[in-house]
């Protein structure tokens, strides 16, 4: 709490015990729930007293590993406390750098659902971790409000650009997929395109045609390909600028779809164009 007071954040997460593991015992899962609630109560006391943190929001963490009853308990109890929002902990893969957090694995979707059933509608819910577009949409559908940029970062780390279609205005590279898959066995999926592919050596179009990010308005696939090919730092910088922009644009599109009532259409588009 003294660290939080020094940082003066807009919002912060109360200390929690998330070490219940992927396949943990019920006992360990229960312990993480109890401990986290105990930490939360102590943090809340300090928060109440703190002059410095008067304008900061404290979030509680939902624990319980993969045990549905523990998750429900954690959610119910945390919801009773005067927190500003909730962090759904312990669902991250914590796996290798190229992993994506698949919600359809190990009953994660059901666990998230059971948590959200207990949480109040009017407080935000955060789910951390590298979620790809389909998984983000699945999480949004369940009721998650806040995500982080880990996925965009991991795409950059492997010298790739996010190229999945975010709106009718931007031409997806998916139309080139046939050619790409022939020449590039490393093609991971249709959300991203690796700029290490020699096919881009003399391709003078932007990473995504129609994209308004710094990289796409000032540089070409050929230049980015050259930079990553010779190991120049600027390559990753330009990719990160694009990937973050593209990723944020996706969230704008989600918000728009929810407002217009076309969310299901968006899910179908992502699923048919981009999922294997």
């Amino acid at each position, binding site marked *: 709490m003294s660290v939080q007071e020094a940082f003066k954040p807009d919002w912060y997460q109360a200390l929690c015990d998330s070490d219940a593991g992927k396949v943990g015992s019920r006992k360990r899962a229960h312990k993480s729930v109890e401990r986290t609630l105990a930490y939360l109560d102590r943090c809340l006391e300090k928060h109440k007293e703190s002059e410095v943190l008067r304008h900061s929001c404290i979030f509680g963490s939902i624990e319980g590993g993969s045990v549905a009853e523990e998750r429900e308990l954690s959610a119910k109890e945390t919801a009773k406390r005067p927190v500003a929002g909730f962090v759904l902990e312990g669902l991250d893969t914590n796996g290798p750098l190229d992993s994506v957090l698949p919600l359809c694995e190990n009953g994660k979707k059901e666990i998230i659902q059971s948590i959200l059933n207990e949480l109040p509608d009017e407080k935000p819910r955060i789910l951390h971790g590298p979620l790809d577009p389909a998984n983000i949409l699945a999480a949004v559908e369940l009721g998650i409000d806040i995500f982080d940029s880990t996925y965009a970062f991991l795409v950059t780390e492997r010298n790739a650009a996010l190229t999945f279609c975010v709106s009718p205005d931007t031409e997806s590279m998916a139309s080139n997929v046939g050619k790409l898959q022939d020449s590039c066995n490393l093609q991971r999926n249709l959300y991203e395109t690796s700029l290490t592919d020699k096919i881009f050596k003399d391709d003078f179009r932007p990473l995504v045609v129609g994209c308004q990010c*710094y990289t796409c308005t000032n540089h*070409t696939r050929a*230049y980015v390909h*050259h*930079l990553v090919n010779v190991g*120049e*730092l*600027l390559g990753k910088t330009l990719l990160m600028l694009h990937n973050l922009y593209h990723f944020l644009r996706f969230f704008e599109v989600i918000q728009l779809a929810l407002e217009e009532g076309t969310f299901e259409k968006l899910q179908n588009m992502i699923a048919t164009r981009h999922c294997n």
Partner: protein
Amino acid sequence: MSAPVNHSALTLKVLAECSVTKARACQLSLPHSVVDTPVFMPVGTQGSLKGITPEQLENSGCQIMLGNTYHLGSNPGAELFDKVGGLHKFMGWKRNLLTDSGGFQMVSLVALSEVTEEGVRFSNPYDAKDMLLTPEKSIEIQNSIGADIIMQLDDVVSSTISGPRVEEAMGRSIRWLDRCIEAHKKTKTQNLFAIIQGGLDSRLRTICLNEMSKRNVPGFAIGGLSGGEDKNDFWKMVTLSTDFLPKHKPRYLMGVGFPVDLVVCSALGCDMFDCVYPTRTARFGTALIPTGKLDLKKKGCAEDFRPIDENCSCSTCRQFTRAYLHTIVTKETVASILLTIHNIQYQVFFCRLTVIDTCGFYLFLGTRGGNINIIIII
């Protein structure tokens, strides 16, 4: 006989000359933009300046930067430059570019190269293929890259070598200059500079100066120095060259250097400089400041909430403190980018300020250069 037609895409206007030293402030007009001299040129070897976007580089005040023909000729290769229309277009840099000939690798990769009258044979470390770099080939690649200033292929020997090899290299550089002039196809948009060689031997340097200045080139470089030789020998060769070279053409001192070298060599009449020092030292966590160097890794910076230099207007000094930089230096990639931006802007402006007006240079030595003890016999 009529005067030779001037095809050069360059004009040099001397704005002011120091009344005490040989320093001068000039305006160098090149195809892409005007350059204020004395000018420091940062080195972006492979078509990029270590993490800096062209926009950031422009904002730091840089008017001309270097690319390396040897690297660019390998990746992405001359053919691609022909396709895209040159390095300016390829990397999105609107101001000036200078490419070296690829010859410097002769000195730095000497184990892998063999020099004959024909050219330099390299064993390319990228693909283990043999590459023969002739004067013609070097110019051809540089024509494709499209830099505003291109350098002749010269026979470079280390400044620490003496004996007949030095004279051989000097003579060959003259012959290679003629071959480069012959091979150069884009005289209206690219300026071919000659490079004076001759090691640390004044007799050889003088021969070279005599011969090369007979050729109608838009500018001259002083090469073969800044390779670890004694400073006492170094500046003597510099001043010998600037005494001889025509005043109305720019003088480029290659591979220089540290701030003190910029001051001294500006005093000796040089206009253009290049060095990897400021960008390299940035990546090791060192910032350049008026009193010398600031090592941001040092504990003393941990609670120092001043910018690197209170008088610096670079984006790093406007936004970040020494304390913040101390926490990220050598840990986060962005630290080297922030320091690189500062060091480039610092060095570029430092170089320009060495000559303010006719009397400015000597005053400058008194104020900014105060920590440097210089004894120059001119």
